[in-house]
């Protein structure tokens, strides 16, 4: 058992930490206040290799492992959630899903430019009236000759107004749609340039205001048959396997947010005086700090375990779900306590902790709400849920294979 980060992981951590401190932190308050997404961060992340961090070099990636992806998420969300979200959708939900399920042609056509950051990608499952109830989506795809015609609307999609490529899910079997039989769903890669694709941004979110969240509207969008990801009827499995990677990035990000709350609270508790001593000397403040430490360590250990399983190529749906549940719920609690430690100042945007609190709530809801994660854990424990092998499993991380040139 080795709990130490390797030298390579430590260097990745330092690099992303510096990057976030220099490239993101100086302007984050402005972007958050004005609800602007800073597109200029994308070429900078691309130049650094972050947009393909854990994808194989032959697919344009940087060839690092799943722990590196996690550490990058932790460091980005330490500064602000919006920038971790980029990795979640672009790498976690989209890139890794193409790696797992895509044909060689699809990988060359879509994954390579995405990993290089020449194209930005996202994932569209959620719809205006279907979130946790993924089988309740209404989008449809009907076959017409050598292509599919997609109709429907996706909602709460990160980078909706920014991305070039979208991985969307739609019913290809209308009978099964009516019967709510998930084997009637399929996955498609669509491009912004396809006729009938429209997107928009949602404003007025509680948090992640420096991020871009929006909707995708598909009206008779012709999609070439070769843009179906996986086989017809595999959409639901693909969507769920993608969440194993998306949730992993969310869990790591929440861990970074907890650390940000802990650091901010410790700093403030040492400097603010009350009743003649620094407030860190008061036991009820200590209790909040102790809880943050507990949650940081436990969340991070769960994330590391999930990452280790991914590196081994072992199915990790349960472990990733547990990490996501614990880390996100903890980050919300820690952010609320961080505001409390800061007192009235924490309630104003002079300090960062109010932003942390607003940002933390989203991840408790998206990529499988707190309630869904609890159901998953209970169903595994009770034996109601078992992992079945997938037609395409994510391969184990092998540095030699991952770092092979094309």
């Amino acid at each position, binding site marked *: 058992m080795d709990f130490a980060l*390797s*030298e*390579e992981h430590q*260097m*990745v951590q*330092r*690099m992303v930490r*510096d*990057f976030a401190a220099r490239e993101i932190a100086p302007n984050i308050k402005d972007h958050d206040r004005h609800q602007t997404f800073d597109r200029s961060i994308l070429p900078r992340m691309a130049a*650094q*290799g972050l947009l393909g*961090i854990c994808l194989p070099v032959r697919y344009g990636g*940087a*060839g*690092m492992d799943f722990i*590196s992806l996690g550490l990058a998420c932790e460091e980005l969300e330490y500064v602000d959630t919006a920038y971790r979200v980029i990795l979640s959708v672009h790498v976690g939900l989209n890139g890794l899903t193409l790696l797992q399920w895509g044909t060689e042609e699809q990988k060359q056509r879509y994954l390579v430019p995405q990993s290089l950051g020449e194209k930005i990608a996202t994932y569209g499952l959620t719809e205006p009236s279907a979130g946790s109830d993924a089988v309740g989506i209404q989008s449809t795809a009907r076959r017409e000759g050598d292509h599919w015609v997609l109709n429907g609307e996706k909602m709460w999609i990160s980078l909706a107004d920014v991305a070039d490529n979208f991985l969307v899910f739609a019913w290809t079997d209308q009978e099964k749609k009516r019967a709510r039989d998930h084997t009637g769903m399929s996955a498609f890669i669509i491009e912004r340039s396809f006729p009938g694709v429209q997107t928009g941004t949602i404003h007025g979110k509680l948090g992640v205001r420096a991020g871009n969240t929006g909707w995708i509207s598909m009206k008779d969008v012709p999609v070439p048959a070769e843009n179906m990801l996986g086989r017809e009827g595999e959409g639901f499995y693909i969507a769920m396997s993608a969440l194993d990677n998306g949730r992993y990035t969310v869990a790591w990000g929440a861990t970074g947010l907890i650390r940000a709350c802990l650091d901010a609270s410790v700093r403030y508790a040492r400097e603010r005086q009350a009743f003649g001593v620094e407030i860190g000397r008061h036991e009820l403040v200590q209790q909040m700090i102790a809880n943050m430490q507990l949650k940081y360590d436990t969340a991070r250990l769960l994330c590391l375990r999930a990452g280790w399983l991914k590196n081994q190529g072992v199915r990790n749906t349960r472990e990733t779900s547990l990490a996501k549940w614990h880390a996100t719920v903890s980050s919300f609690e820690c952010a609320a306590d961080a505001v409390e430690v800061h007192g009235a100042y924490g309630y104003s945007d002079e300090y960062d902790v109010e932003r942390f609190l607003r940002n933390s709530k989203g991840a408790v809801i998206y990529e499988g709400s707190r309630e869904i994660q609890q159901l998953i854990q209970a169903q595994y424990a009770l034996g109601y849920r078992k992992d079945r092998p997938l037609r395409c499993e994510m391969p184990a991380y092998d540095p030699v294979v991952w*770092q092979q040139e094309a």
Partner: protein
Amino acid sequence: MHAIVCIKQVPDTTEVRINPETNTLIREGVASIINPFDTYAIEEGLRLKERFGGKVTVLTMGPPQAREALKEAVAMGADEAILLTDKAFAGSDTWATAYTLSRAIRRLAPFDIILCGKQAIDGDTGQVGPGIARQLQIPQLTYVSRILEIDPESAHIRVERLLEEGREIVDCSLPVLLTVVKDINQPRYPTFMGIRRATRMEIPVWDCQALPEANPEYLGLRGSPTQVVRIFHPPARSGQATLLTGDTPALLAAQLADRLLADKVI
């Protein structure tokens, strides 16, 4: 073009605490980084290599853990790295440090340029760079904010120096030693490729045996003419603050100007 960059590993804090008993820096619990000014020197070396080809060698003297700083420089793109470490080097002041580094640089010759940060953020002396140049008997250009021209063929360099009175343009011959200020560039981040190369690289360690030319009398504490008698925090400044009040910024500025003139500040 062979650029040698001298770097120092320093504690990652501007608030270095001092152990009052031993008069030494408290390093426990403080993460170490490359001296920030030295990162500009590394970047400048890498840019020269990108322009002219050749290689960048980073050199540091310090305890074994200073290897981390060298690896960081390799992750940024440096080609080679040398760690000078030996108990015999311990306790070196700026003179002995410059002496030791210069002897190592002789072993790395030939070179076209030596790059150093203008000073280290822990000791703040700014003496090691110039000391190396003196030991090697090559010209030194300190506080360089821009390399305006450089031609390895004709062995000529023109730089801009950032001085208190203004900017100075200087022509000089190569080889030369430059100390650089932070205006000179924006250091790059390590790359994933660089990180992999760095973690797999065996960094050569040179002890005093590796420097046969060096006079043992000039090394470490024994070779250091500086004797630290006492290190202390300067007393906290005391003073009085006056709050100026006025209706408009113009009125406030006028009041401030009057006060400064009266106090003979301006």
